[in-house]
């Protein structure tokens, strides 16, 4: 028997409805039954959990239940938080989580902070010095490459020495945040 609605697919659902004129029986295929919005969920799909809803909203992708806790879902080595759990509770477990989930975070922050994904505010003094030196080294290296390309080897050697000098200074800087932790 064909579905009385689409007259294409075979009947798989017999739908009994109470109407003001008495009960009515309808023979439908599962797709039409679903499309008629008589069901609150698709026969192939479970209703969406809050967690799926949140993870879709925060990352723009659904996390399938079977990938729970493994298969490309990083786990923080410091506190054991999984990305899945992070989406569930909306909180990080420790500062290392930021490193663990680094690749996925711009998407999360973008949603929370109106599209912004990078900090532009205050930098602690100790970090600031290190960052300045790192930027300096990057710039010197770029000039050095340029000099090599243009075969100005003497200048490239001077720049190389300068890079090494800054690298020594960087190594001598105390660890970020005042207390040395052997970084």
């Amino acid at each position, binding site marked *: 028997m064909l579905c009385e609605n689409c007259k294409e697919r075979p009947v798989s659902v017999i739908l009994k409805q109470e109407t003001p004129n008495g009960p009515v029986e309808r023979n439908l295929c599962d797709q039409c039954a679903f499309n008629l919005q008589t069901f609150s969920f698709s026969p192939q799909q479970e209703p969406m959990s809050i967690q799926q809803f949140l993870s879709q909203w925060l990352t723009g992708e659904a996390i399938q239940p079977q990938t729970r806790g493994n298969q490309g879902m990083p786990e923080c080595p410091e506190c054991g938080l999984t990305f899945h759990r992070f989406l569930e509770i909306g909180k990080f477990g420790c500062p290392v989580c930021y490193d663990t989930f680094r690749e996925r975070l711009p998407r999360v922050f973008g949603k*929370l902070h109106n599209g912004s994904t*990078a*900090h532009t*505010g205050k930098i602690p003094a100790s970090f600031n010095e290190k960052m300045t030196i790192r930027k300096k080294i990057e710039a010197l290296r770029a000039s050095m490459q340029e000099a090599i390309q243009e075969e100005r080897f003497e200048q490239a050697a001077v720049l190389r020495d300068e890079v090494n000098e800054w690298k020594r200074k960087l190594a001598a800087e105390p660890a*970020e945040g*005042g207390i040395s932790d052997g970084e």
Partner: protein
Amino acid sequence: MGNDKYMQNAVTGWMVPHGEHSDIVMSTRIRLARNLRGFRFPISFPHEEAEKIGELIADALLIPEKKGYSYTRMSDLKKLDRQTLVEKHLISPQLADAVMYGAVLLSEDETVSIMVNEEDHLRIQCIYPGLQIENAYQKADETDNLLESRLPYAFDEQFGYLTSCPSNTGTGMRASVMLHLPALTMTKQINRIIPAVSRLGMTVRGSYGEGSEAPGNVYQVSNQLTLGKSEKEILAELANIVSRIIAHERKSREMLLGKSRLALENRVFRALGTLSYARLLPSAEAARCLSDVRLGIDLGLIEDVDMNILNELMVFMQSGFLQNYEGEELTSEELDSSRAKLFRERLQRRTEDSSRNPESP
């Protein structure tokens, strides 16, 4: 009044009207969330880490220079005392509940309070009276620099200050201004302002933050975004929005005064009557009447009530204070009666003064 001394001690810097627009702006608060590298966040840390963090922070502020801070563990405070600190806005309700590991460092004048092991390891908070965004930030920043020079902060080049909740990541800064907006509330314009402000990346809510109502028409305007904007930009935007809201409130007050002066006077003096003579004062009614009397003073309708007293009462009328004041736990009817008594006593001076210098009829 036997407990006058207790009440005097209970007055905190931000309760004394001061600063620009002090008729509308009650206080300015800056909060910086910071965490220490090498430790898990309070949501998941074990006992030893919690203890260690408390020690490190106390050492950083207490031992080296004796900066005039006091360190108090939540576990050493009675429930009522913790509640009193919440009512003075010196700690969050969340810290008051964190009895196990929470602590607070308070500066002598109570303008700086540093919460330890709340949602983050550190929450530096500065409250100033009136509109003092720059000053409050400067003080918070100074305290932050001092702590940063002695503690290993969790900071990342890309994400900034690393916090437990991603909604604080970046600057970790929440800047808020508490505003008394009776005219915007009475004229229902506040319902249009709240969504407009939130489109600009700021939020407006009741004085106790998320989910709280606005008792006494006191609203808190604060920044929502902490990532992608510098502290300066955030503070400038907040100042801009607050100044617009103040201008709106002033306009509405003038309009009310011009169009319905008698109705306004009636409302304001009825409120003063209730506060001066009631025998039972539920907190919602007290907050409503305080708001009306405050408006009456601001508009020059009431001239013989001191704004200082009103600001104090706004804090003292809360249940933690009242129970501390009475020295015992109270039932809700006892609270309403104690509150009424407190208001009568505090406003007594006014009636005594005016009976000596009676107003012309």
